[in-house]
């Protein structure tokens, strides 16, 4: 299918760009690690409270590292107006959007896996790795939600005078439902709380569908001047 073929081409290009330029993923990983250290001081994490704090800490890190990373990849697109070569091609705005969503999703997921690993190591919390299969659906759907909204918004804010600085102001309020879903369902699973995790995962799926539909329609208005 041509549609997906184009999206995959853009994904490939972004992976290549990351390998050559190391501008996005490496910064995200570095920020994640740094935030873990900061949280350790700020919250005085130990064996007793690690389980109840884990979900909140992790999702805050996911959100902020994600903002940094998605902001970078969009800036790389705006640099030298490189994205115009995509705009001037037979690639539809929709394929362009999906390609960018896929590459952001990939980088976010890699960052999250590393963050989980660091977390398990630094706070001696192996449970989170062993529970990974149960955590995965919410993690994936939440990250997809981040990427769906973040791709649109980071491309939008990168054109402004304030650049990436503006991204969190627009992006954070809009993705509150995704953050809520991610944090809550992970907390339920990690701490064996009763019920609700499934419902949240379903909700996240619904949110993703909604965000996908709106962003897919609106993306074309961001790449034309």
């Amino acid at each position, binding site marked *: 299918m041509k549609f997906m073929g184009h999206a995959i*081409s853009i994904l490939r290009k972004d992976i290549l760009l990351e390998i050559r330029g190391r501008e996005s993923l490496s910064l995200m990983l570095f920020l994640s690690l740094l935030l873990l250290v900061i949280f350790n001081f700020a919250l005085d994490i130990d064996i007793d409270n690690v389980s109840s704090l884990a979900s909140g800490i992790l999702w805050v890190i996911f959100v902020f590292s994600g903002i940094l990373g998605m902001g970078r990849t969009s800036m790389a697109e705006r640099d030298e107006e490189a994205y115009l070569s995509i705009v001037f091609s037979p690639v539809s*705005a929709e394929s362009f959007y999906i390609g960018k969503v896929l590459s952001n999703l990939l980088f976010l997921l890699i960052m999250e896996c590393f963050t989980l690993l660091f977390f398990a190591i630094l706070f001696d919390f192996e449970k989170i790795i062993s529970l990974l299969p149960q955590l995965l659906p919410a993690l994936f759907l939440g990250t997809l939600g981040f990427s769906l909204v973040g791709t649109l918004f980071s491309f939008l804010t990168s054109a402004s005078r304030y650049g990436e600085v503006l991204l969190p102001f627009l992006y954070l309020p809009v993705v509150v439902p995704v953050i809520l879903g991610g944090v809550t369902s992970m907390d339920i699973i990690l701490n064996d709380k009763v019920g609700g995790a499934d419902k949240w995962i379903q909700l996240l799926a619904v949110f993703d569908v909604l965000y996908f539909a709106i962003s897919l329609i609106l993306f074309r208005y961001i790449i034309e001047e």
Partner: protein
Amino acid sequence: MNIIELRDIKKQYHAKTALDGIDITVREGDSVTIFGSNGAGKTTLLKVISGIMSPTEGKVFYNNKAYSESDIKKETFYLGHKTSLYNALTVQENMHFICRLFSINHKGEFVDSILKEHGLWERRSDPVNELSHGMKRRLALAKGFIINPKVFVLDEPFTGLDLKWRASVLSKIKDLRGKGKFLILATHLVEEGYELADYVAFLHKGRFLFIRKKEEVDIKEIKEFFHSPGDDLG
């Protein structure tokens, strides 16, 4: 016969009128050079022609049809002030990416031959940000040869190039003319622009002072316009 037609195009920025009633018709194979000083609206006009920018008022026609922006975009190669290249990728990777977007086979000789033709072959494995300014401009233009569309819209293609590079870019653009492409060029370099044109136009404060056949305008006249544009208009 293909025709690009602009009818009463107006474009407004915040409080500034960049284009103020532009009418122009371009026939296939004809080459138009638009002269004008900085801020005359050349870049805006070219962006409207190539469909990146929608005008505040007026319409763009392509083959007598009101073309949607996305359609005209696909018929057009636009080279602006920026190169539209990915700086971190190598010369070849940039080209291969373009090929993928346009479903052009990049494994064959085609890309290599164009790189050779444009003197970029030796630098094919270098990242774009290690190239000199002239090389970058040349690579950006070479992209157009790969895509090979009907319309070439070139905004100041000679900016920042030394004489040697300028001559080589000029000869490449001449090649395009030979192939019967639409060529719409904006520049403030009178000699080069004049040489490439069939029609010359002078843009001042968002309006055409004139559009004429090259034969009807002397190169000296254009130079004078740069010194005192619109004197006779008051």
